[in-house]
């Protein structure tokens, strides 16, 4: 395992010299205040020092100090990746709280915004609403207002228009990156002095992909140029039900496969099942038999389409075509996909961005974890069936959410594990569940999106060894002392644990 040094008083002094006393703390209570276990990840180690740099130059200097001392560094801003926004290795090292770096520039002519790591979705939405109401920042859908645009983008996350435009990483037009050596560079056309971030593939081969999804393990992204999208004001949600996952997945594909026209208007397509609603309330204070949903006419499975249009006529046309496609599907498959009668408040709630829809699962039993997988859209029904069965087998409610990416090309499948975080042994149980499902899903060629470094990452890399070796090589070129935290992918494995490597046996 890689040996790191502790953050000494001497190192703290150097950090204070860079950022000022006000922005460096080794206070134990304050360090604990950054902790999180749940939401997206369970692995979290207490940082030794927290620092709040103001700009890229300070980050460069911090990284150089960390490199000299061999201290691990973890960058975070919104911190909504749960445990994974925190150090995952011992000793905890330096946690960079990047919330002070919250500048944002918007260029509506070139339809791009440049954000620093601390620009929060709630703030961006507020500012766009007043200054650029015809444009929308690509904020994540369902994430709380404290989530950051850059955090979502570099995680290749999910945005309010992912159904139309693809993962958030596809919205990137350029990155500004600081390497652990202190070297600073930009990607895409932005690499050219004075040039705008207008062409992602810029002046040469583009290394963006090495940094997107690395959670800062390859370098710290200090700015990102991200596409903004038109914000037409004729919007609604339409939902159709079904008696199985298959019968909500397939008709959505029938719409998505057109790609242009109505498919482009359906910016967000997402579905779920009864437990997805029920587990947003305390287990002891909600009916668990689902009769209530039947009574109010909600099908066991449903798929929402969020439709944006530039006029009422365009909106009506899109809704009409969607309805026709569902009706054709019903005939073809001899099934019923009933249009769900949504209350205006339900529609308003789903249209709200950013919203808190993803938050209340903690209410069910005081703890939850999102686990996320990608698979081809039409295979997602099989994945969800297997997942729900495994969840029930392990005693978790089968709470499941699915959404389309890029016109139903891929599915993001997200089981939500609702559990009692104070129950002894619960984290072992979750790990066991994760190992079992991961082994099965990897065999079927499906990919975990937010890997747990001790479960998904080694199991995935044991089946993609050449790619893992290549990533390790890149990592060692960019960060020879491996001071940046290993991220979810645990590259290289030795930076995380002494346990056998995914390449064991070679």
């Amino acid at each position, binding site marked *: 395992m890689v040996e790191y040094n502790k953050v000494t008083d001497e190192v703290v002094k150097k950090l204070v010299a860079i950022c000022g006393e006000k922005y460096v703390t080794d206070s134990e209570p304050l360090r604990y205040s950054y902790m999180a276990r*749940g939401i997206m990840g369970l692995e979290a180690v207490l940082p030794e020092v927290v620092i*709040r740099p103001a700009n890229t130059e300070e980050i460069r200097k911090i990284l150089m100090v960390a490199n000299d001392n061999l201290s691990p560094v973890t960058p975070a801003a919104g911190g909504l990746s749960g445990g994974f926004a925190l150090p995952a290795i011992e000793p905890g090292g330096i946690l960079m709280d990047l919330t002070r770096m919250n500048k944002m520039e918007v260029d509506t002519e070139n339809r791009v915004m440049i954000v620093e790591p601390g620009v929060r979705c709630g703030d961006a939405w507020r500012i766009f*609403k007043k200054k650029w109401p015809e444009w929308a920042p690509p904020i994540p859908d369902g994430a709380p207002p404290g989530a950051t645009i850059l955090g979502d983008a570099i995680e290749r996350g999910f945005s309010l228009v992912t159904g139309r435009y693809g993962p958030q990483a596809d919205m990137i037009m350029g990155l500004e990156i600081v390497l652990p050596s202190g070297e600073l560079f930009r990607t895409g056309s932005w690499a050219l002095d004075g040039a705008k971030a207008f062409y992602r593939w810029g002046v040469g081969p583009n290394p963006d992909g090495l940094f997107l999804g690395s959670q800062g393990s390859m370098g710290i992204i200090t700015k990102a140029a991200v596409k903004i999208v038109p914000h037409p004001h004729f919007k609604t949600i339409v939902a159709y039900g079904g008696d199985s996952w298959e019968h909500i997945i397939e008709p959505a594909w029938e719409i998505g496969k057109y790609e242009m026209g109505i498919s482009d208007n359906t910016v967000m397509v997402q579905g779920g099942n009864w437990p997805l609603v029920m587990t947003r309330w305390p287990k002891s204070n909600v009916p668990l038999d689902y009769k209530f949903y039947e009574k109010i006419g909600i099908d066991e499975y449903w798929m929402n389409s969020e439709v944006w249009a530039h006029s009422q006529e365009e909106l009506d046309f899109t809704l009409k075509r969607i309805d026709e496609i569902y009706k054709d599907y019903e005939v073809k498959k001899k099934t019923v996909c009933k249009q769900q009668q949504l209350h205006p408040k339900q529609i308003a709630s789903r249209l709200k961005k950013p919203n808190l829809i993803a*938050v209340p699962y903690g209410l069910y039993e*005081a703890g939850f974890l999102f686990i996320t997988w990608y698979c081809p859209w039409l295979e997602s029904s099989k994945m969800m069936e297997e997942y729900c069965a495994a969840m029930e087998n392990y005693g978790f409610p089968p709470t499941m959410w699915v959404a389309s990416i890029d016109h139903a090309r891929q599915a993001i499948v997200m089981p939500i594990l609702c559990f009692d975080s104070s129950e002894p042994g619960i984290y072992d149980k979750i790990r066991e569940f994760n190992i079992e499902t991961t082994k099965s899903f990897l065999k079927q060629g499906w990919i975990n999106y937010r890997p747990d470094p001790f479960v998904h990452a080694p199991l995935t890399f044991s089946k993609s060894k050449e790619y893992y070796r290549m990533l390790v090589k890149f990592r060692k070129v960019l960060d020879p002392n491996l001071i940046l935290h290993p991220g979810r992918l645990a590259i290289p494995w030795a930076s995380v644990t002494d346990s056998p490597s995914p390449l064991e046996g070679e």
Partner: protein
Amino acid sequence: MTSLEELRKINARCIHCRACQYAYSNEPDREGADEEYTGMMLSCPGGNFYGWEGYFNSGRMWMARAFLEGDLKPSQEMLEVVEACTTCGLCAEQCTNYIDTVDIIEELRAAIIESGVEPLKRHKMIGDRVLEEDKRNPYNDPRSDRTAWHDGSVDDKNMKVAYYVGCTGAYRQQDVAKHTASILKKLGVDFTVLTEEVCCGSPILRTGQKDIFKIVMKENLEMFENYDLLVFSCAGCYRTFKVDYPRQSGKPLPFKVAHTLDIVYDLITEGKLKIEKPYNKKVTWHDPCHTIRHIGLAIEKAILEKSDNWLLDSRKAAKAKEAWYERPREVIRAIPGMDFREMYRIKGNSFCCGAGGGVKTQFPEVANDTARERVKEAAATGAEVLLTSCPFCITNFTDAVNALKKEEEETGKDLSAVGSKLEIVELLQLLDELLD
């Protein structure tokens, strides 16, 4: 008595989403006048001031968790961080996991102190004064002067109604006590005040000094137990009697409680009281956390505690809470001639004045900074008068406006846009002036 341990599972609901840092965290499309006052706004007094995660509720919930798990040891340093919070409850209002954030913060403070850490210096001082036999108030004033402001009935055991004046009314804002007494008289409410009254314990409980709180709570409950109704003018005392005494004693109150504004509200809405005199000014209203948000949240909680279907009853509970938030507005709208203008952050999303939770006493810079932000928001409405009904809000806003005036004098700048010309007015005082 409650304890942090009893709140362990509620604390564990926190997923560190940080929505609690914002006002209107679930209303991103809320319309406002400009870019500053639109959508959601970072609105945690402590967090906004210090910036570190530990000063926001989201960080405090995880400090509480680490404390409960034995990972974080109690210390003076920890208490300093945990006490720098006005316990305004904005975070509780935002939390879709219904975490009782104020209770957890107060119980965490108490648990730290119970583990042997000394209360912070100024907090300890007010605790000591409340215990001193010849004082029994945090202001260091003689107990014998407690009812000196009053020339009416005192210690009358035959009365059905007692006015619990509170220490601020008795010693610092006697005019509010006098106006309240005058209103009650005009409304035909016969009441008495008690010379033996002791501090309600609000600042003591808020700062984690539960042993002292238990003493004063017991004394007050026994002292007033034979009255039918206790009326209040102080937001803090009212909240403490109404919410904290039943919870901390584990028993229902032996008497009814009502803020004087509740009595006015009831009479107005029942059509029994009409304000005839006009008040021809531009006015905005600040919701005191203790009488508005805290009580609203308590109403919501009480409904949900009895419910076996939160899916349905959460809406009913939210409606009941909203109805509570509307009450002072009904009173204000009953005043003729007034040009009433709402601030951007109101009701459950109201931004704190900055004085509560022991902050004004121990962290005056946080209190001042917060009050300045709020008076700026009030000034942005174009109001001449900032109306509220809480002695601590009144004091803190007055201090902020005075500081702005002083700055104007020193720099020659016109600071009226950020509130230097605002007149801070207690609603009880205004009502007394308008009622015949």
